[in-house]
């Protein structure tokens, strides 16, 4: 089985938890790395390897706080890879969380939704 990929968050980069065994697929926090291509490369490679034999159902959570435009291209690439898994007949569900105060993150989620065929659900996180 594919080894899980765990990247702890920093002030510039998001947390990435990818663990097929527990069905955990998460990316969250801030994404403003200096070299976004370099940061996302191992993640995209991991998804490539995962797509060889994915779980029957993949539930991927995005919980981003803010990210720069160079990260946005890499995030699209990641979403496209998930779409490819979906197109091969596997169940894939993406949840895009945004803070109730963050209409920009909601809008970004809508942008991605418009560009993809894979099920992407926008979910607002309310403050309690």
């Amino acid at each position: 089985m594919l080894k899980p990929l765990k990247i702890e968050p920093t002030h510039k980069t998001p947390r990435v938890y990818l663990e097929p065994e527990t069905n955990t697929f998460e990316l969250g926090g801030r994404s403003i790395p200096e070299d976004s291509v370099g940061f996302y490369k191992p993640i995209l490679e991991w998804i490539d390897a995962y797509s060889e034999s994915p779980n029957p159902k993949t539930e991927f959570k995005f919980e981003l706080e803010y990210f720069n435009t160079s990260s946005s291209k890499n995030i699209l690439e990641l979403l496209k890879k998930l779409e490819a898994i979906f197109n091969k007949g596997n169940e894939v569900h993406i949840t895009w969380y945004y803070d109730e105060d963050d209409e920009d993150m909601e809008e970004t989620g809508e942008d991605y939704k418009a560009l993809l065929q894979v099920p992407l659900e926008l979910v607002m996180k309310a403050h309690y």
Partner: protein
Amino acid sequence: MILNNNDSSRISGPLQFSYPCFIDMLSNNLIFMYRGVVTSDLVTHVLQIMEERLEEDKASKKTSKKVFNVMVECLRNVYSDEMSQEISELESTAILLVKSEEDGYLVSTGNYLKNSEVEMLKNRLDKINQMDGEKLKVYYQELLTSPIAEKGLSSLGMIDIARKSKQKIAYQFQTVNEFFTFFTLEAKVIRR
């Protein structure tokens, strides 16, 4: 007693510099000011400081989020790429100002450019400023899906500023000499 700017010439010693600068910042409601090289590490620190400054300034969470999002892109614009050898020291230094106004926050950046870069940048900004929200959205999605190119990325950042601030991007080019132009960009985030 507060001295006005004109009196500052009579002050000597350390006050001569710090006091007029302080009064200037105070009277203009500048809540943040930085001049120097903008690196990725700096962006992280600026955001941390701004988090506190916006809180002190009683900005709502909604407003703060927007200011953050706009700042990230404005800073990206004056970001100096450490890998690039072609950029001179002068070009790598920039200014960042954040001004608290009654109806919102003004994020402003300034940096030197080669004169030859002005026209393309001006065209890009004019093109974006002519678009309404819907057109900006279409253009953003188009560039997002186009093959990665540094130029496209820079446009993407500008569209992002326009979309998130929901305002036209104000800009100015000031020719410095036969080689350089000083470029100022201003994005306003309306308080909400």
